[in-house]
Each structure stands twice: as structure tokens, then as C-alpha cells.
């Protein structure tokens, strides 16, 4: 059998074709080594285990999570022979593998974005107290979404809710969520809030919400964002970049709309509290009227008392002028001519005496 003869470049092309046919895309797990970025555009590193090492190439924009030497990762790649005959993996995506690597990657990106001020409290915008139009980005099949819808329906009404159905885990999730964010941010009729929700899951399930481009898209949203991902204990960078962070999808619903039951109770209380105020005003008014009446009566009494006192004074003066009062003090009243031999009448307090004048001396 005749052996095929290739040119070098043809043979490389045939090998690449074979590789592409056999392994259109592979996922390989290993540890990162010799990580470097050239010209701020190209990323080179090796992925290795105890038995071997493979060279990897990707662009900076494809690197969605920070990685560093020693970190365990899973790469999604296309195997290739370069024109220089070197075997290399062209990386489509890379994600940390295992809890330690996820945590390390999370901390690295958190520190980077924190430094840029993406999580700064002064960037946070308040949500409208009663929104009328909201957008929701979630998987409509997820339990977290069902909880969210049930709670908003229980709590409030009249709300227009536009829902973008997206994947909320896996390699495609960040891009789908970013597209949904872009979609809502470019509507003519902007929603008042964009809500991103996903129920609980493993650290790997929730890793999509630590994607750098997604976190940046949330921070850059024109429309205020509310993010409720996972359970209360879960923390994602998407949460931190959001204007408002909810502990869970149910909590997001509670933060988004008021409870109509509470409003009804408050309204009832407001009206009930008016009646005592009217009663109190009536009672105050009647107290004022009755106080005025009492005042008038007291003034009249005072005047009468004053008059009585004055009258008593006059009567006292009159009593002093009464001749009987003078007689009572021991004086006597003499009637008749004051000449010797004349008969006179002497009136005392108790008797009237007839007497003859014996002597008259002028003082």
C-alpha cells in the first residue's frame, strides 16, 4: 500500500481536521501553571496534572473569572496543532473547579472589582417604593422563580412583569443573563427595576453569578437592579454589584412590592384614628364653652358680692347714725327748753325721764 505524502502544512491541516472531528470540544481538568497575559490581549498558561502538561491559549475577553497558578480549573477547549507543530488547546472558556478554586477565584475578582468601586455604597440607587413595571430575569422553570411570582401576586397587584427566560447555571448562563439585561436596558419603555433571581444550589451552580462580565453588566445597568440569588448564606458578586441585594428570590419579591394587606391595615388604622380626634375636639370645644359659662357666673357672683359688701358698709354707716345706737352707748337725748324751772324730757336707752331744770351754766 502506498503511503500518503503530505506537505507539512497539509499534514498539520489534516491532523487538525482529525482532531476537530474526533474532539470538536473537550473539557479538561487540571492545575494552572505558568499563567501569563501578553499585550493585555492574549492569555497563555499550562494545564497539568502529575502525569502531564498541556499548553493553553485564549484571549483576555474570554477569561470570565480570574485564575492564577496553582488553581484547579476545568477548561473547555479545542485541541489544535499550531503551524509550528506545537500541540495546544485553544480555550473557549475556563472555570474554577472545586470549592477551593471557586473561593479563590471569587476572592480575586471581588478584590479587583471592589478596588474599581463597583460595590461602593454610593453607587446604589433606591428602588421605587411602588413600581408599576418590572423586568425579571430568571429561569421560568426554577423553583425560585415560582416562589417570587407567588409572593408578588400575594402581596401586590397592577404590576406589569416582563420575564426573560434564561439559563441560570452553567457556562451559557452569564451571557444569556447579560443579553437579557441589555434587552431590558434598551427598551423604549424602560422597566423601573430589573430583578435577577435564582434559587439555591451548589457553589458550582451559583458560579455563573460570579462571572466578571455579568457583574459588570449589572453594575452598568441604566435601570436599577435587584438581585436575589441562592439562599441567605450565599454570597455572589452579582449581589454585591446590584443596587439592592435580596437574600433569596422570595425576599426579592418582598423588597420589590409592598404588602397590600399591610397597606389596607394602615389605611383602616388611619381612618379609625380620626374619630377619637373629632371626639376630642368636640370635648375640648365643650370644655371651652363650659369654662366660659363658669367664668361668666363667677364674674356675676363677684359683682354681687362686691355690691353686698358695699351695701353692708353703707348700712354700717347708717347704723352708726341711728340715735338708738348713740343712746345704747350711754348717751341721753334731752327735749325741752334749757331754762331754770323748765320741765324737760330725758330719753336714755331704756327710759324716758321727766325732769326740772335747776341750773343752767354756759360752757
Amino acid at each position, binding site marked *: 500500500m502506498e503511503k500518503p505524502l503530505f506537505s507539512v502544512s497539509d499534514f498539520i491541516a489534516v491532523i487538525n481536521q482529525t482532531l476537530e472531528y474526533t474532539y470538536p470540544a473537550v473539557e479538561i481538568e487540571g492545575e494552572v501553571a505558568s499563567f501569563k497575559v501578553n499585550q493585555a490581549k492574549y492569555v497563555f498558561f499550562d494545564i497539568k496534572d502529575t502525569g502531564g502538561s498541556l499548553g493553553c491559549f485564549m484571549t483576555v475577553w474570554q477569561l470570565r473569572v480570574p485564575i492564577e497558578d496553582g488553581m484547579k480549573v476545568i477548561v473547555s477547549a479545542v485541541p489544535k496543532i499550531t503551524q509550528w507543530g506545537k500541540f495546544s488547546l485553544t480555550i473557549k472558556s475556563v472555570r474554577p473547579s472545586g470549592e477551593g478554586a471557586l473561593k479563590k477565584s471569587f476572592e480575586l475578582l471581588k478584590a479587583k472589582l471592589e478596588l474599581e468601586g463597583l460595590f461602593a455604597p454610593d453607587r446604589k440607587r433606591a428602588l421605587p417604593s411602588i413600581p408599576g413595571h418590572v423586568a425579571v430575569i430568571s429561569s421560568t422553570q426554577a423553583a425560585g422563580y415560582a416562589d417570587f411570582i407567588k409572593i408578588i401576586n400575594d402581596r*401586590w397587584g397592577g*404590576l406589569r412583569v416582563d420575564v426573560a427566560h434564561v439559563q441560570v447555571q452553567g457556562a451559557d448562563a452569564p451571557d444569556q443573563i447579560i443579553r437579557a439585561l441589555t434587552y431590558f436596558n434598551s427598551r423604549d419603555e424602560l422597566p423601573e427595576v430589573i430583578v435577577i433571581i435564582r434559587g439555591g444550589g451548589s457553589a458550582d451552580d451559583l458560579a455563573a453569578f460570579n462571572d466578571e462580565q455579568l457583574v459588570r453588566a449589572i453594575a452598568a445597568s441604566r435601570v436599577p437592579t435587584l438581585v436575589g440569588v441562592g439562599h441567605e448564606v450565599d454570597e455572589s458578586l452579582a449581589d454585591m454589584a446590584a443596587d439592592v441585594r435580596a437574600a433569596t428570590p422570595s425576599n426579592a419579591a418582598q423588597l420589590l412590592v409592598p404588602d397590600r394587606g399591610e*397597606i389596607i391595615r394602615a389605611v383602616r388604622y388611619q381612618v379609625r384614628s380620626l374619630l377619637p380626634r373629632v371626639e376630642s375636639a368636640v370635648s375640648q370645644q365643650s370644655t371651652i364653652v363650659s369654662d366660659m359659662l363658669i367664668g361668666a357666673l363667677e364674674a356675676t357672683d363677684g359683682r354681687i358680692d362686691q355690691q353686698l359688701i358695699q351695701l353692708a358698709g353703707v348700712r354700717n354707716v347708717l347704723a352708726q347714725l341711728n340715735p338708738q345706737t348713740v343712746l345704747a352707748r350711754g348717751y341721753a337725748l334731752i327735749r325741752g327748753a334749757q331754762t331754770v324751772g323748765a320741765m324737760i324730757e330725758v330719753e336714755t336707752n331704756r327710759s324716758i325721764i321727766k325732769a326740772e331744770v335747776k341750773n343752767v351754766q354756759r360752757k
Partner: protein
Amino acid sequence: MSKENKTIQAKTAELAQLVAWFDSEDFTLETALDKFKEAEALAETIEKDLTALKNDIQIVKQKFDSEA
């Protein structure tokens, strides 16, 4: 914001104004009863409106699994 919600908000604001009137210097006993009846009726309307309102939930037709 929907028209219905605006109306509820406007009614709630109106109720708050009515309640505030009872504490204001404009308060007179002559008008208090009318104002009270007005507040009572408004509260009832707000309660009815709130109970009757339903949310309008629409799934966006646009697909997000690839660049549009």
C-alpha cells in the same frame, strides 16, 4: 407605572392629606364630620382597589441563548 397603581397612590396621598387636616390649623368642627366621612369612603375604595388588582406577567418572546 400603571394607571391603576397611580390612582391608588394618588388616593393614598389624598387620604394622608385628609388625615393631616385633622391635625392642622384649618380644623373646624363644622367640617370635621364631612371630612371624616370622606376619609372613610376613600379608605374603602383603596381597600377595594388593592384587593381587586392583578399582576400582568408576560414572558418575553425574545430568545437569549444566542446573539440576536
